[in-house]
């Protein structure tokens, strides 16, 4: 047991836990004043039911002994009791670290259902999604010593370079992005979508959220080294480089297209950069990280307008940011990996095109599974307890109707 590694993982788990309230502010600030509390409650609710889902079956399905490389044994360690009794500090804190990943991933989806989803239905959705979607996908990618379905040593890709997903480009961002798209389609558009402005009600909160996300993301990316070592340090530097440059990418697009660099754009650029570098943070040199960040900002800045074109109300841009930049970061490994990990270099670093193909295949499998499984969960809830609040509630504000509160009473 190396106390330095334990110290870093304790820190990292704490940082990742903070990301979900960070997301609550990022999303809450972007929503309208009459629905900010509901938006934040979806994140806090994800922390509540996410913990429950994780200690019951999520952890076991994700990290338990594999059953045919598909899922961990769901009865592997109910209540994490054996893990804690084992007394191995790294094993214990890793179980906690895993919980924070499950929570933030499902919380990300809430951005696409803003202003209109029943709170009880959200809690149920979040609980089921962690167990049925997050946990299996995380098992495929990271389970069984990277030897489950989508791992670099797994049955499908074992003989090929990759696929690589250091901290969760597929498991977290593509997965949540696809689920967000499905839920946005299932719920339908908000009243006034595409006509009313629906501008962020509190932009400093959006920036606070982006800042807490960036800060917490150091735990996410550099913590995924599971050690305080060179990989962690590399992940830290690349995360900062990509994120800083992604801000530039996003606001440059805005400046050129709309004439003005917005604070919403800067905050969104932060998140796009973080998302894109997540899978790739240990595979790149900083020039590669800068390219990944710059294009993440550009791609996502362009992608957030698509919802108006195609008419899906991905309210707070889960698709435009997490799916698009998650995909880009995952594929970018195939282009820009510098070969540090197993000598597998990307196309522009002297490797062939195979790694790119493997990355694309892993992303594709994740997309398909996430779409189908999320659709099933969503449909079951829709036709049982229902997904959406009434139009009257939506217009007068979901905060008051679902939570009995309004966010601000500053004048009193």
């Amino acid at each position, binding site marked *: 047991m190396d106390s330095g590694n334990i110290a870093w993982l304790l820190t990292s788990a704490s940082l990742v836990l903070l990301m979900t309230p960070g997301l609550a502010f990022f999303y809450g600030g972007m929503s309208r004043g009459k629905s900010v509390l509901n938006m934040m409650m979806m994140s806090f609710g994800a922390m509540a039911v996410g913990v429950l889902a994780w200690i019951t079956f999520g952890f076991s399905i994700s990290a338990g002994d594999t059953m045919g490389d598909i899922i961990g044994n769901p009865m592997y360690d109910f209540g994490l009791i054996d893990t804690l009794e084992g007394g191995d500090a790294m094993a214990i804190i890793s179980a906690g670290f895993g919980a924070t990943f499950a929570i933030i991933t499902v919380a990300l989806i809430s951005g696409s259902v803003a202003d209109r989803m029943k709170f009880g239905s959200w809690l149920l959705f979040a609980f089921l999604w962690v167990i049925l979607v997050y946990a299996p996908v995380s098992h495929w990618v990271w389970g069984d010593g990277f030897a489950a379905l989508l791992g670099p040593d797994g049955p499908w890709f074992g003989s090929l370079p990759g696929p690589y997903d250091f901290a969760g480009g597929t498991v977290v961002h593509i997965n949540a992005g696809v689920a967000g798209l499905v839920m946005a389609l299932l719920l339908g558009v908000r009243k006034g979508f595409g006509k009313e*402005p629906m501008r962020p009600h509190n932009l400093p909160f959006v920036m606070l959220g982006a800042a807490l996300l960036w800060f917490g993301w150091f735990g996410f990316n550099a913590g995924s080294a599971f050690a305080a070592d060179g990989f962690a340090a590399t992940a830290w530097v690349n995360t900062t480089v990509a994120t800083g440059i992604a801000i530039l990418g996003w606001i440059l697009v805005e400046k050129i297209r709309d004439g003005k660099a917005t604070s919403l754009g800067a905050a969104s650029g932060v998140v796009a950069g973080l998302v894109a570098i997540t899978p790739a943070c240990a595979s790149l040199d900083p020039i590669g990280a800068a390219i990944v960040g710059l294009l993440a900002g550009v791609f996502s800045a362009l992608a957030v307008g698509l919802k108006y074109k195609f008419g899906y109300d991905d309210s707070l841009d889960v698709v435009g940011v997490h799916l698009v930049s998650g995909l880009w970061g995952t594929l970018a490994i195939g282009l820009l990996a510098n070969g540090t990990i197993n000598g597998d270099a990307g196309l522009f670093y002297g490797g062939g095109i195979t790694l790119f193909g493997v990355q694309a295949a892993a992303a594709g499998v994740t997309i398909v599974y996430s779409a189908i499984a999320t659709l099933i969960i969503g449909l079951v809830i829709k036709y049982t307890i229902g997904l959406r609040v009434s139009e009257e509630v939506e217009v007068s504000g979901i905060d008051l109707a679902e939570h009995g509160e309004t966010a601000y009473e500053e004048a009193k």
Partner: protein
Amino acid sequence: MKLVTAIIQPHRTDEVRAALEAAGVKGVTVSEAAGYGRQKGHTEVYRGAEYTVDLVPKTRLEVLVDDADAATVTEAIVSAAQTGKIGDGKVWTVPVDDVARVRTGEHGADAL
């Protein structure tokens, strides 16, 4: 007595208040409003969406004056608030039956 109400551009408030003091007006009540008129809203693009902003922020001033002063006060406001751009606002006068000063219970012109 008369009540002169003015809807003006917020950034002219200081100038108008100075003009009112110069015109001998002893008190004013101010509040926030928004409006549109000839100054229609403009189209904006924000995060890939295009939409129309139609209400423009304005400041409302209310001044109670003697009948005789209504016209002077109106002119004072108009000239201090004028920038010549569309959206400069309106000033209107309505008749007042009675005014009372809360502190003393006085009525009429004494209460101004």
